[in-house]
């Protein structure tokens, strides 16, 4: 047997991990690593429409960011959305999980129903809420006008001060159940003995939650926050469907801005630069969070 045949045999035998990893590595290279590298390269270039080619522009794209007000607006919108949604969904998710964490009749069905929102594509959810918040026939508009919060002159999604709230509603509806499911799984895996001990120690429900449940759930909460946080930071679909970023820049997120620069204005290099900023920011935030949360992963 030749040495070459030997080597081949080694490759396909179970002793080498490479054949098993190869498809994954190929996918990673094609769909993640190459686009990332290309994106970095692109951020130092720009498409010249009249010459129909990409030309190097040095640091122009990066320095342009500094004086681009719309870019800074989109950063502020993204951060507002990101932090508000994380807080609301963690708090609401935990509250609902605690309520549903019970063996009462019907709760099993309720838990199953919760998963339904997760299978709907976000763009469809966006369409649903566009209708719900429609100024003419939206049910939410109708209710809010009835109770006197709206007076018919400021449509929810077309008013600067309420448009982002209108979009957030869709996000809360769709993604709070995700938090509920994760938290409920966490709650169910907790040991029962500390709770019995706490009961005998005289703890009230709130004291038990504060001193025992929350610390025990730390890891679960951290994982949920991380997954959801990364997702929230690149939010795109709801704004794209519901407001296109408007009115003004009130719902313009980083992802939406990068998309607009790339595909509407054909500024490929600038779009790439914005999306790179988004990537860098989320990496920093995620790692800071892991550091601060002190969770041992």
């Amino acid at each position, binding site marked *: 047997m030749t040495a070459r045949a030997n080597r081949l045999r080694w490759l396909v035998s179970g002793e080498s991990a490479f054949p098993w990893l190869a498809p994954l590595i190929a996918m990673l290279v094609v769909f993640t690593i190459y686009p990332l590298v290309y994106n970095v390269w692109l951020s130092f270039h720009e498409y010249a429409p009249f010459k129909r080619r990409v030309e190097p522009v040095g640091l122009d794209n990066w320095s342009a960011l500094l004086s681009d007000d719309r870019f800074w607006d989109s950063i502020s919108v993204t951060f507002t959305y990101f932090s508000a949604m994380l807080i609301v969904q963690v708090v609401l998710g935990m509250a609902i999980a605690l309520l549903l964490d019970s063996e009462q009749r019907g709760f099993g069905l309720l838990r199953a129903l919760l998963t339904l929102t997760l299978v709907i594509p976000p763009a469809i959810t966006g369409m649903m809420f566009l209708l719900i918040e429609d100024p003419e026939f939206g049910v939410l508009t109708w209710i809010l006008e009835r109770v006197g919060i709206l007076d018919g002159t400021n449509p929810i999604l077309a008013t600067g001060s309420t448009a982002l709230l209108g979009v957030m509603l869709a996000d809360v509806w769709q993604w709070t159940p995700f938090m509920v499911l994760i938290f409920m799984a966490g709650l169910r895996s907790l040991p029962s*003995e*500390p709770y019995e001990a*706490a009961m*005998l120690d*005289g703890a009230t429900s709130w004291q038990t939650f504060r*001193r025992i449940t929350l610390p025990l759930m730390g890891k679960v909460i951290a994982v949920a926050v991380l997954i959801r946080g990364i997702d929230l930071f690149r939010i795109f679909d709801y704004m794209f469907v519901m407001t296109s970023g408007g009115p003004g820049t009130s719902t313009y997120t980083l992802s939406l801005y990068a998309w607009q620069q790339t595909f509407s204005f054909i500024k490929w290099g600038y779009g790439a630069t914005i999306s790179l900023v988004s990537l860098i920011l989320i990496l920093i935030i995620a790692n800071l969070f892991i550091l601060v949360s002190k969770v041992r992963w």
Partner: protein
Amino acid sequence: MASVEYQGLVKNFGSIEVIRDLSLTVEEGEFVVLLGASGCGKTTLLRMTAGLEEISGGDLFIGGKRMNEVHPRDRNIAMVFQNYALYPTMKVFENIAFSLQISKVRASEVRRRVEEAAAILNLSEYLDRYPRELSGGQRQRVAMGRAMVRNAQVFLFDEPLSNLDAKLRAHMRVEIRQLHGRLGTTTIYVTHDQIEAMTMADKIVLMREGQIEQVGTPDDLFDSPRTRFAADFIGSPSMNFLEGSIEESDGHAYFRSPGLRLSVPDKMAENNSVTAGLRPTDLVIEDSGPLVGDVILSEKTGADVNLHVRTESGPIIVTVSKEMSVLAGDNIRLTINPEKLHLFDNPNGVSLRSN
């Protein structure tokens, strides 16, 4: 401190009755051990006392007050669990201090009481550790510390020593007894280990299938078991049982079994089916003894030797001092003081002797 009283207590899990019409009084300051095989309902009884299990029927009184529907946190009871049930995310100090902190005791007072308990339990240097960084014995002591710092009316222990090794168990038995001596708190202690029960209890409650088999001091249960079950459960090695009958001749009662005739001290009616119980320690090797057998195995336990003897009436175990130098294969004769002979009616197993 408070007394605990059960009146006709019942507990059902679905259609299964695990506690049946149980009545018992634990006096103020008493150390009572609930003893029984696993599944006899002793832990359920303890958890009902704590309020962790609902009471299906009957009444529970603590300190004279009916407690059936009172929430566990309002019963002022401290409990030490089998697997300790420490708070995993709190350090030892917080674990012990928790009950005080949530009841808004002043921080300086909390510190004083926790440190005092830690000193008694040899935990002072571990206050800054998490439970996962402690050994089993240390965790056990933290669980006790948690009970100690509270001025609870009643202490409940649920097989607290079963996860410890033999040596530590013996040590902790003494510590728990000393703790009781110091605090004098009414204590109910659950165990399946008859040695724990014998060494620690003021009063043993022997349970069987959800009912009380016998209540008494350790000596009562050892010397005067009221049933064959009680006789069999207490003592190690277990009591020897020989099947036979009671016969009367010339105004005297005798226990008769193949190759054996033992006189019975009490007046007793003839009975053709009884079981005689002989404790291994009550049998004495004597050349004129009525019970003859061959030693088939000799087990050394240190100071004593357990001889496994085959007799015409059945196999028995005899505990003798190791100085006796009896070997396997020897033929021996045994005698027993008639006063130490236990007799049980068949098949109900009730003692025939009115001790």
